[in-house]
């Protein structure tokens, strides 16, 4: 097994460098970064409204079915309609904070659907994880919130953590994501800026981040586009555009 030292010896010889570090790249200017990050967090309703327009237009182009709703209640209703129209029976959802504020769980349940929430049991993490996976594999749809949405690319961003699974948005054939206007970012630059800011502030990055841009797709057989190869074939966005107080 090559030791790290031998590897770097070869590498530095190839670079024509002496051993040791010869570069101290200027670190990101954390003051400027913090300022930019707060500027993004404090965008005006007008800015957010125009970003939402751009986001919706782009999201539709990359394959999201978008519903725009004026309230949380309307969002719940939209999800229920969608589920009933497709004859869904089982829905699995993540425990995004947004999904606690939107009465979607109750609405689905009272419409006769079975709704499972992702949250493992601290007593038996292995067992509950296996059980949840089983649920997800057989669910008709996965329901999630989003941590960000990106207007530039029509994507949503998910940061898995307690209650937020990596795979609720992946295993079921349909993915439904609830997004609020305030979550829409202008660009990839903004996303990475916010992530970098968090990284510098907390000293670590979370284990996982998914940028999701439309359905799962492939063109590997005869270069013909097919959706839903490993991930969902149908993806829905419910954008909640509430009036700001």
């Amino acid at each position, binding site marked *: *097994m*090559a*030791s*790290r030292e*031998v*590897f770097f010896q*070869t*590498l*530095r*010889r*190839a*670079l024509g460098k002496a051993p040791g*570090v010869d*570069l101290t*790249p200027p670190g*990101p200017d954390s003051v400027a970064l913090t300022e930019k990050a707060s500027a993004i967090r404090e965008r005006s309703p007008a800015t957010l409204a125009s970003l939402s327009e751009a986001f919706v237009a782009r999201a539709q182009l990359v394959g999201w079915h978008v519903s725009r709703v004026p309230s949380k209640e309307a969002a719940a209703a939209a999800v229920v309609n969608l589920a009933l129209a497709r004859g869904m029976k089982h829905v699995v959802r993540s425990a995004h904070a947004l999904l606690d504020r939107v009465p979607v769980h109750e609405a689905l349940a009272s419409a006769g659907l079975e709704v499972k929430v992702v*949250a*493992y049991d601290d007593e038996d993490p292995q067992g509950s*994880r296996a059980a*949840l*996976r089983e649920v997800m594999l057989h669910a008709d749809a996965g329901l999630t919130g989003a941590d960000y949405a990106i207007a530039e*690319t029509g*994507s949503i961003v998910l940061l898995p953590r307690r*209650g937020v*699974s*990596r*795979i609720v948005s*992946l295993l079921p054939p349909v993915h439904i994501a609830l997004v609020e206007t305030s979550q829409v970012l202008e660009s*990839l630059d903004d*996303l*990475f800026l916010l*992530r*970098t800011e968090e*990284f510098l502030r907390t000293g*670590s*990055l*979370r*284990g*996982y*981040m*998914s*940028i*999701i*841009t*439309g*359905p*799962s*797709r*492939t*063109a*590997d*057989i*005869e*270069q*013909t586009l*097919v959706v*839903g*190869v*490993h*991930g969902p074939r149908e993806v829905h966005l419910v954008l909640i555009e509430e009036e700001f107080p």
Partner: protein
Amino acid sequence: MPEVKTAEFPRLSRQSLADPQVQSSLRRLSHFIEAREAAVAEVGEQEWQRLRDQGRRIKEHAIAHLDYYLELAADNVVKAGGNVCFARDAREACDYVLKVAQARRARTVIKSKSMVSEETGINTVLESHGIRPVETDLGEYIIQLAGETPFHIVAPALHKSKEEVADLFVQKLNVQRKESITELTAIARAALREIFVQADIGMTGANFVVAETGTVVIVTNEGNGRMSTSLPRVHIALMGMERVVPRLEDMAVFLRLLPRSATGQRLTSYTTFVTGPRRDDEEDGPDEFHLVILDNGRSRMLADEALREALYCIRCGAWVYGGPIGAVVTPILAGLPQARHLPFASTLCGACREVCPVKINIPHLLLTLRSRVTQGPPADRHASWLERIAARAWQYVVTTPWAFGLAGRAAAILQLPLLRRGRLRWLPQPLNAWTRTRDFPRVAFRPFRARWSRIADQHPREKT
């Protein structure tokens, strides 16, 4: 194994071009070319050039300080709870992967498309130890089922028609025959699902690795990259050591360049950022994370001023394997004598340089490689004595005007029996490679140098 593939390239290229399935698939690919052009046009030419320059500068910087950024990346992976292996060659990388797999008593490894994994030949190694590697990219899955080596001019399963895929699925998966591409995809989805959920290890490549945070970035459309990094208990990421970029914010540049250049998408369906194993407060994800950083000839490229640029390559899309930049990278990784044909498999038309998202001067790199093959250091060289004598003879003729003239006259006379209506429709070996499909013009009976004495003393017309 890449060696076999590259050494057989001339024969394979001949076979596949004769295959009508490949021909029609190649034509369908023009769809991708158009999508790419549209995606670039949408950004605007000026902005696109700015992005390319920016991407190029980041790569230049990262490669010039590769030692620094690799250490930083490795330290951050470890800080995030992951393990790092520095592998000098394919064998060391395979040894490490095998060791991890055996320690976990793994029986199945699911793989998301990775060029480095092909480069190392890890599948063969795993199989020989009773561990089953399963490719999950649909194209690669089909090829693996068929027991073939992917012939990557453009896409792994380029040469398979949907009927062939249907037959293959019936034969190997024991399913009812379906003909539509959607149904075939659904069969693969179901078959791979079963393997995904019970696999012990997920193995992926790394499109980029962010040094600042120790993050592996994986770009896929199918979702197999997400599956491989979410379901199994262990995730092993293989990266060529040139894949490191300094900062997270650099990803904004490369995520704009890569999908547009590859498939003409604004962004691929899934862009996945993995930083170490699952955190304690996460619902799912692997308990273990390993990053294998592979040299395998890259430091040779790095040491070579004329070739270093090839390391800036971000491998945009599946087709690069057999495409021009593959012709640059493969010979260096496989060793030139093995892959000596590849640098010659290009017209040097320069179109690749125009579309390269990081502005690599591919045709000039290919010229350099050609000279390494014919006259480079002994380890790279591959030229027969006959070729060497021919080269010297050619040099003598073109640096000796009377000999040049004489050679022309000799050719003009020798061609006489072959001339048909002022053209040559057949020529002997090796020139018949030309005349099989094309006429060759006749050698002039009076070359320009002979005509010059007649026209030399005429003068420019007088201006009136």
